[in-house]
């Protein structure tokens, strides 16, 4: 293996700025959506007093979870010493920060009072996992920044391993914290489960890697630069392991829930009678996001070409969004049971399955968050040396003989 050299994002200015303009256009759509929601109040969205968290939260949670997963590539190189992934460490750190900022932007802009961000930064209730997450998220950005510094500044290289370990531990904490936002909700039958923490960690591995694979494919294969088949196969196999882990934890989550008679109702709702939620669970989450990628990635390893791994990554992302939707929206759709054994009715929708249709503004805000992540990535890559100049076998395959 030869020493790694890095370059900036190289493409004609016209191409670069036109793509950047598209990303900024979507950011503008997101900001416009947030302004529309804030100006009119949340009644213009699909969210209400029954489904209090909606599409913005689906996007935000997806991006935040994917952010910590994106950092995993760097961890594999630094902490676990896999030389194949070492050249990708810088990109990994950058994507992690960008995705997190994108996700947090959505979360923040959906607040009823986004103008009170300063209140959220100055008033802390330490019995709230939400407050802890504020530290976990800002800390993650700081730790990832430090990690990048140790990767990109030669005198700092000696701290790289320590920073990598810190980042790895921190990202586990971050995803645990995100999972526990739901896991700590004793009130809702679909949540209130400790298994949500490891499930979210597995989800982060899968979603983060899937996004990373796609970014890599666009930047290298899409630009006609060689991308080692060895690297593609390794990432394909890794993605399969992560997807299998997600499916495993989903299985454990539902089996545990099914075993308790009190949760039979909510399980019946998610798995059988939930209409769109049930369809998203089986078709989106299990088949599109789980079984098909697994079948594609676990066959003959020689078949693991970039188109195949890339397609599987797209399916994992689509399935992942479906999964987060099922967790957040499906979990709220099932009514709270105040008096077990009784049928409840009221003017406040007690006892009925809550319906939710996302508004255009909510989807716009969510896509805006994705575009913020894309914009940060594009600008940073254009300004600093994030990209390995060469991703051919010579650089990434430890078994390569020249």
């Amino acid at each position, binding site marked *: 293996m030869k020493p790694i050299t890095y370059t900036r994002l190289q493409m004609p200015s016209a191409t670069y700025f036109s793509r950047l303009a598209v990303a900024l256009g979507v950011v503008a759509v997101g900001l416009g959506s947030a302004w529309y929601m*804030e100006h*009119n*109040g*949340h*009644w213009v969205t699909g969210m*209400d*007093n*029954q489904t*209090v*968290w909606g599409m913005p939260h689906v996007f935000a949670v997806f991006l935040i979870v994917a952010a910590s997963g994106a950092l995993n590539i760097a961890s594999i190189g630094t902490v676990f010493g896999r030389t194949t992934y070492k050249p990708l460490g810088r990109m990994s750190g950058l994507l992690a920060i960008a995705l997190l900022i994108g996700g947090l932007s959505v979360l923040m802009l959906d*607040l*009823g*009072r*986004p103008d*009170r*961000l300063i*209140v*959220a930064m100055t*008033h*802390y*209730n330490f*019995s*709230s*996992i*939400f*407050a802890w997450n*504020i530290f976990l998220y800002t800390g993650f950005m700081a730790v990832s920044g430090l990690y990048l510094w140790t990767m990109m500044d030669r005198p700092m290289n000696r701290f790289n391993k320590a920073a990598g370990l810190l980042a790895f531990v921190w990202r586990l904490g971050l995803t645990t914290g995100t999972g526990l*936002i739901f896991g*700590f*909700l*004793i*009130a*809702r039958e679909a949540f209130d489960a400790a298994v949500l923490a490891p499930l979210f960690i597995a989800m982060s591995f899968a979603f983060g890697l899937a996004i990373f694979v796609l970014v890599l494919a666009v930047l290298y294969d899409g630009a006609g630069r060689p991308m080692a088949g060895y690297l593609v196969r390794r990432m394909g196999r890794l993605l399969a392991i992560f997807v299998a882990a997600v499916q495993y934890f989903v299985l454990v989550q539902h089996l545990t829930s099914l075993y308790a008679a009190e949760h039979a109702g909510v399980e019946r709702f998610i798995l059988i009678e939930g209409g769109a939620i049930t369809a998203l669970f089986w078709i989106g989450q299990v088949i599109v996001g789980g079984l098909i990628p697994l079948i594609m990635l676990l066959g003959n390893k020689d078949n693991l070409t970039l188109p195949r791994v890339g397609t599987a990554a797209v399916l994992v992302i689509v399935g992942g969004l479906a999964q987060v939707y099922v967790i957040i929206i499906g979990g*709220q759709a099932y009514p*709270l049971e*105040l*008096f077990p*054994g*009784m*049928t*409840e*009715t*009221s*003017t*406040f*929708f*007690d006892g009925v399955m809550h319906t939710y249709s996302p508004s255009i503004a909510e989807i716009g805000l969510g896509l805006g968050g994705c575009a913020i992540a894309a914009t940060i990535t594009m600008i940073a890559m254009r300004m600093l040396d994030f990209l390995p100049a060469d991703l051919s076998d010579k650089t990434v395959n430890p078994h390569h003989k020249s």
Partner: protein
Amino acid sequence: MTECPTSSSRRQFLNAASVLGAGMVIAPGVTLHGISEAKAGLPRVSSKVRWGLLVDANKCTAECTACVSACKIEHGLEGHGRVKTDAQWIRKVELRDRGSGRTQSLPVMCQHCDEPPCVDVCPTGASFKRADGIVLVDKHTCIGCRYCMMACPYKARSFVHEVTTGQKSHSPRGKGTVESCTFCVHRVDVGRQPACVEACHKDGKGAMTFGDLKDPNSDISKKLVAHGGVRIRGDLGLDPGVRYQGV
């Protein structure tokens, strides 16, 4: 060095201006402090008291919504004709036993838990519990994240989805923040009963009793001793201040 007269007069002017300026800055504060001190003439909120509410479901009828109407008037809860987003601080829930088919009707509002999950999860501490057990939202520090609504097992909280009109000075509301039953804290602090309880006795069936759960001689305590009372979702261990009889 001798001072020129202009310099001296300028200094006098600046001194006078700064005294006047300081006075203008401090005076309103002193006045407000005075007002707050005047209000502090009320009995201090104390943990020696725990306010609670007892609902006798045997007396409550499905047709009667006196408590709901009184709450809306008392707190200026004007709706916008949008049932899914309009606030409801108290609602009548109709129950039907799946086995026997027996039906009942009772009001459900913030249960003013001793271990309120809304307070635990609130990131900024805007949701808080007073020493006397009343759970409130500080509208100045609520950022509208709605995590408390996700955490409340009683669906007792509403998010203000749009601009509010007809607000009452004792019950401020704000678009983008969360709100719920306050146990009519503005009344309780001056020794009155919550509006729903008053209406229940005046226009309803007298199914509601409000009082101090820690005072063994209060009506509510005596009724609880005599006939017991259940907590909604008592299994969660939140120890709500609202109890029900006949459920």
